Every structure is written in structure tokens, then in C-alpha cells.
């Protein structure tokens, strides 16, 4: 579904990604794990067009992402839940969801999509008229995921969905990701919470200092010595 080939990217003179190859097949849940500053967020931003790579290619179902204007990438079926959620704090929950359905195809099915998201998150229905910035971190994460789902994407990009949340809430967020996947949605998730994310995804890539260090199925990675020592603390 999504294919990155030898992607280099950075900010000005600072290089964040070096020759990254990555593939996500339809129906898969794929994780990208790695320490702070490894380039995980940059990787997500490159896929959704917020920054453009300096080298390499990105294709979504055969369409060249790099020649697609940034605001048209969501129409290819890629929805990005950014790091720190980035809700519009002084808009209501419903207006935030409305922004997720901005593209023409989603706009036409707004009522239907809204019902879908409210079914998934009954809490959001209760809070639809509340300002998004006044909700708890967990609720904001639900709203951010809901906003991304409003466009009826084929591929969901989740950037550190557990960051800054209480452990109980982190559990809930990962349960939610499981539920979303079981609906047939393809998911690419970036996490520092290695133990948790490997329970949810089929495969994962280990990103270190801007390069893919290793990759494998969740079971392989959980068993690998490198991962166990560096990230699981055993």
C-alpha cells in the first residue's frame, strides 16, 4: 500500500533521515520504534507531506506522494494523527471533527462519518459541544484519532499516541488501536512505548539515528537481544 524507497530528509542543514526503506501492506499494522530524536516524527511528516524529502521516493497505492500537493495527500487515503495531537483547542469537539472531513469526498458523507466516529467514541458524542482544549489528554487523543478517521482513510498514521498519557489511558489507547485495525484499516504507528506497541502491531522497524537498524515481526523483535536490552530493559 505504502512504499518508501531510500528516503533522505531533514530541516535545513540538519539531516534527520538517511536512506529509509519502509513498506506497509494493505491490512497490516506496522510499528516504527526507536529512541527520542531517531527521526520517527520526521518519517511521519515526510509521508503526509508536511516536509518533503531531499532524496528517494514515496508511493501510496502506486501514486507518487512527492508530486501530490500536501493538502491533497489526505485524498490519497492517508490520515495523520500528529505528535501531541494538535487539536484546535478553541474549537468544539464537533468542529474539530468537521475539519477532519474537510476534503470534498468526506464532506459529502459528513453525517455518516460523524455517526461512525461517535459510535467508536461515545465520549466524543457527549462532549461534542465542549472546547477540545478543555478535555483530558486521553479524550483529546480520542478526538484526534476521530478527526483523522473522519476522512475515511485507508492508512492511518499515528505519531506517539501514548505520549503524555497516564498508564491506564495508554492501555485504553492501544485497545482502541486494536479495535480500529480489526475494522480493516491499515495502521502505521510510531512509538517509544516499545513493549506496548509490539503487542498491537504485526511487524515493526527499529529506527536509530535516522536509519532503519533492523526490522521483523513483533515476536522476533520481542525475542531479539538488541531490542530487549536497549528498549525493554531486561
Amino acid at each position, binding site marked *: 500500500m505504502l512504499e518508501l524507497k531510500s528516503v533522505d530528509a531533514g530541516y535545513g542543514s540538519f539531516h534527520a533521515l538517511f536512506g529509509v526503506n519502509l513498506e506497509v501492506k494493505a491490512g497490516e499494522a506496522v510499528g516504527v520504534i526507536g529512541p527520542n530524536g531517531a527521526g520517527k516524527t520526521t518519517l511521519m511528516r515526510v509521508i503526509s507531506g*508536511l516536509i518533503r524529502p531531499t532524496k528517494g521516493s514515496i508511493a501510496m497505492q502506486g501514486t507518487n506522494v512527492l508530486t501530490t500537493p500536501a*493538502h491533497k495527500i489526505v485524498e490519497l487515503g492517508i490520515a495523520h494523527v*500528529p505528535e501531541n495531537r494538535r487539536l*484546535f*483547542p478553541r474549537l468544539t469537539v464537533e*468542529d474539530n471533527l468537521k*475539519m477532519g472531513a*474537510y476534503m470534498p469526498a468526506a464532506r459529502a458523507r459528513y453525517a455518516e462519518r460523524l455517526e461512525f466516529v461517535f459510535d467508536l467514541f461515545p465520549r466524543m458524542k457527549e462532549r461534542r459541544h465542549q472546547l477540545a482544549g478543555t478535555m483530558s489528554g486521553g479524550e483529546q487523543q480520542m478526538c484526534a484519532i476521530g478527526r483523522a478517521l473522519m476522512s475515511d482513510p485507508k492508512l492511518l498514521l499515528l505519531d506517539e499516541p501514548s505520549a503524555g498519557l497516564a498508564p491506564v489511558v495508554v492501555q485504553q489507547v492501544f485497545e482502541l488501536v486494536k479495535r480500529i485495525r480489526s475494522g480493516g484499516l491499515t495502521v502505521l504507528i510510531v512509538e517509544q512505548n516499545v513493549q506496548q506497541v509490539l503487542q498491537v502491531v504485526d511487524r515493526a522497524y527499529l529506527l536509530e539515528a535516522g536509519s532503519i537498524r533492523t526490522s521483523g515481526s513483533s515476536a522476533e523483535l520481542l525475542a531479539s537481544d538488541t531490542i530487549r536490552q536497549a528498549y525493554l530493559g531486561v
Partner: protein
Amino acid sequence: MGSFLEIFDIYLLEAVLNGILLGGVLALLALGLNLIFGVIDVTWICYAELVMIGMYGMYYLVQYYGLSYYVAAPIAILLVAALGALLHFLVIAPLLSSPPINQLLATGGVLFVLQSFATVAFGIDFRNLGIRLPILTLGDMHLSYSRLLAFGAALIGMVVVYLFMTRTFTGTAIRAIAQDRQIMALMGVDAKKIYVVTSALGGALAGLAACLLVLQYDVHPFVGLSFGPITFLICVLGGLGNFVGGFVAAFLFAEIISLGGLFSDLEWGYVLAFAFFILMMFIRPAGLLARRS
């Protein structure tokens, strides 16, 4: 003594009412400027000069082409809306990533360009529509229909903008972009398009204000100076980019001018209003309804 108080109260009531009527138009002007600032993060120093061009548009459409006021008004509004979009294309868009001082100087330059253009093209004569609306007499009070009409139309204009901003996808995007510029592309929003729509909307509000002010004031190339500065003070007092703050500040200012004018000359009303502004800048520098951040 009793009869003195009675007369005094009638004048006071009339001044309060006139203040409210003035406040409506000032609030409309402030809304346009706040909209541009809130969304694009640029201050159109030349905002009142767009109003001036709109007033000339009305003058020529009515006096020269013989159109009726109600036919001319929508044309003038569209004209100034197009001017707003053009201003964005030619001046603001190329400077979007420049320091704010450059943007201020550039729109300040547009102010002088428009004033000089009007002087050359239209001359320095004072012109008016030649429409004299009657005065409404309520007991001992006198309220002009042109002010009542201006107030009503300004209010309707603001309600229409409110509905547009809250009910439509584009309006919601305009509010959203002011809160988080960077992620708009993730929503599928083309920020450049939103900027043009906002500029046209800001221009349309200036156009509406022009249609209303031309009923009360003569047009000349420097007419923008009579309400440009006060619009800025209102926006700053309400907190730049804060729509509700601008609305409240407009009525506050209008009442100070109107009531100040009651006790002395109208000019003293302005002096009081500006003194109040300076005082408030010490007390609440971020605006009347500033959010605590």
C-alpha cells in the same frame, strides 16, 4: 430644577442611543480588521482606505451611472472584496514569511498609494450621494435614519459573518487556521485558498462599511483618516484578532465619544476615548478580553 433634569435625561438617552448606533458601524470595521489579523497574522494598515475606495465606488455608481442605492451597494461590496483579494495577492502573499515590520510598512505604503491614487483620479473635492434621509423624532429625541440603517445593516452583516464562520466548512477552517497554521494540510486544507477567501471577506466588510458611511459622511481622498485610526485602537483595545473583544470595545469607544460629546464638543469625545485607550493599555495591555496563556 425638575424640568432641567428631565431635559438633561432626554439628551443623555439620545447620546447613549447615538453611541450604540455609532458602535454598530465601528464594530463592523473592527471585525474586518480582526478577521485579517486573526487568520493571516497581518495588519492591513490601509483598511480604512479600502473603505474610502468603496465610498467613491458608491458615489460614482449612484451619481454618475444613476444606479439606485440598493443596486449600487452590492456592486460596491463586491468591488472592495475583489480589492481585498488583490491586495493579498500583490502585497501580502509575497511577504507572508517576512518580518512583521516589513508587512506593516508594505500595507502602510498601500495606504499612501490609495490616497494619492484617489487624489489624482477623483480630485480633492468633498462629494456625497445627494441622498438625505429623514430624521426620526421620538419625543424630544432626534435620531437620523441613515444611522439607524447603518446600525441595522452592520448588525445583519455581522450575523451573516457569524453564521458563515460557524456553519460552513470554509468558515470553520478560517477559525481553525488561526489556532494551528502548520497542520492545516493534514486536514486537506489549502491555506493559500483560505487566505484569499479571508481577504475577500475582509474586503467585503470594508465595502459594506463604505456603503453605510457614505450615507453619513462626504467622500474625499483622506476620509479614511477619520475612522482608520479609531478602528485600530478598537482592535487593539479588544485584543488584536479577538472578535468578541473587538465587538465590546467598539461599543465602549462609541459610547465614550458620544457621551463625551454630550458634555462638550464632539472633539472632546475623541480626546476622552483616546485617553481611555492609553489608560487601558497600562491596565490591560493584551486587550480587554485577553486570554491568559
